């Protein structure tokens, strides 16, 4: 098949890809730019401005594209032929001026003066006892106050005897002698409450049937409220309610209004 004729016809539609210039163009392909220093033809510019400028632009573009095609070309899937652009050669000036160095803050000046350096603590530290790197804090860390130890020495809790001795000393001395920073008044109150609860529950029935003292808050520690079932036994519920009602009515006193009865009786007679 000879298609050369059609090819010729096609080719003749377009101008030649070779362009003649007096001074060859400078190219910076990283910027996709070409720099043309040739002089423009004055008379053409004046007479047929549009056409001249159009053809001039076309020539420059053609030269640029020629140059691009001289680069190493690769074929990429779904995109086509791709050229790798070289690095930018032209020095482009800054958009904004260089930032001025900020004056050191009050802390920075102080730190510099004292020679304080910032020490960033690492998350993991080597725990000698466990013999491995564990987090400094958090899950399975070394910071847990001995919560998971199998044995802890009693460090914080004060013995009851010490507290009592302190309390009695306070009564005698002007200045309360405290062993630690604990408030003596609060300590005495809490200890007293503890003692009260212990005394209350040290009866045979654990203080359940003692007469409640008026105004004393009942200790409901650990007591879970229990309610009857919603659709329980009808008869039982009715009987319970009736018994409560009867107790109330009996307490209220006379149902019979004696005066009224006498008056009525007198009326009838």
């Amino acid at each position, binding site marked *: 098949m000879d298609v050369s004729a059609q090819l010729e016809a096609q080719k003749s539609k377009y101008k030649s890809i070779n362009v003649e210039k007096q001074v060859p163009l400078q190219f910076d392909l990283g910027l996709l730019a070409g720099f043309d220093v040739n002089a423009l033809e004055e008379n053409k510019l004046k007479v047929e401005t549009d056409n001249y400028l159009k053809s001039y632009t076309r020539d420059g573009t053609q030269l640029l594209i020629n140059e691009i095609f001289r680069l190493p070309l690769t074929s990429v899937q779904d995109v086509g032929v791709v050229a790798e652009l070289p690095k930018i050669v032209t020095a482009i000036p800054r958009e904004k001026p260089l930032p001025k160095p900020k004056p050191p803050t009050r802390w920075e000046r102080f730190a510099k003066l004292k020679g304080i350096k910032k020490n960033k603590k690492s998350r993991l530290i080597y725990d000698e006892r466990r013999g491995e790197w564990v987090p400094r804090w958090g899950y399975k860390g070394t910071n847990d106050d001995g919560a998971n130890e199998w044995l802890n020495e009693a460090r914080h809790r004060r013995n009851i005897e010490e507290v009592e001795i302190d309390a009695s000393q306070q009564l005698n001395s002007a200045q309360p002698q405290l062993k630690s920073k604990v408030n003596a008044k609060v300590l005495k109150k809490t200890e007293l409450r503890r003692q009260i609860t212990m005394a209350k529950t040290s009866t045979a029935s654990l203080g359940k049937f003692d007469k409640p003292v008026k105004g004393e808050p009942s200790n409901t520690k650990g007591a879970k409220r229990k309610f*009857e079932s919603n659709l*329980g036994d009808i008869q039982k519920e009715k009987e319970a309610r*009736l018994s*409560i*009602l009867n107790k*109330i009515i009996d307490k209220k006193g006379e*149902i019979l209004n004696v005066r009224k009865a006498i008056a009525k009786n007198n009326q009838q007679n």
Partner: protein
Amino acid sequence: MRPLTEDETKVFFEKLTKYIGNNVLHLIDRSDETYYFRLHNDKVYYVSDSMLRQAVSIGRDQLASLGVCFGKFTKSKKFKLHITALDYLAQYAKYKLWIKPNGEGSFLYGNHILKAHLGRITEDTPEHQGVIIYSMSDIPLGFGVTARSMVEIRKLKPTDIVTFHQADIGEYLREQDTLF
């Protein structure tokens, strides 16, 4: 929703007996169908057996009200009787009080009852007794607590308070949001 505990029942019945005395029996022991008192969201509801069985299947957050609301327990476990209980209280009232038409308006706005408004009153009403208040045409209007006994009321001036206002049917409009 749950049945009332013993302490709660005691407080509740004491309040009721103040108004209807031993007729509370008729509320508990009914001939037609068993009615229960149930507690839901600190409010006491009087509900029939059949309705209770249906209400049980409604979730706690979804259940707004059931049966008749008699009143509610306050935060300090005192019981406050609401006007919605009026129907039952009026049926079984022990002590009644009738007010004149000129006093109706005042009472329905939440004011106490003065001697000038007093129409009739049951005999031998003691002091601080719960009474049901009716209009002269025997329509129950609300309830209150007597300020003085019958004997002393006779000696009072017309502007003296005879009965303290506890609840009136005007509350259906005033206290819409909190009644049920």
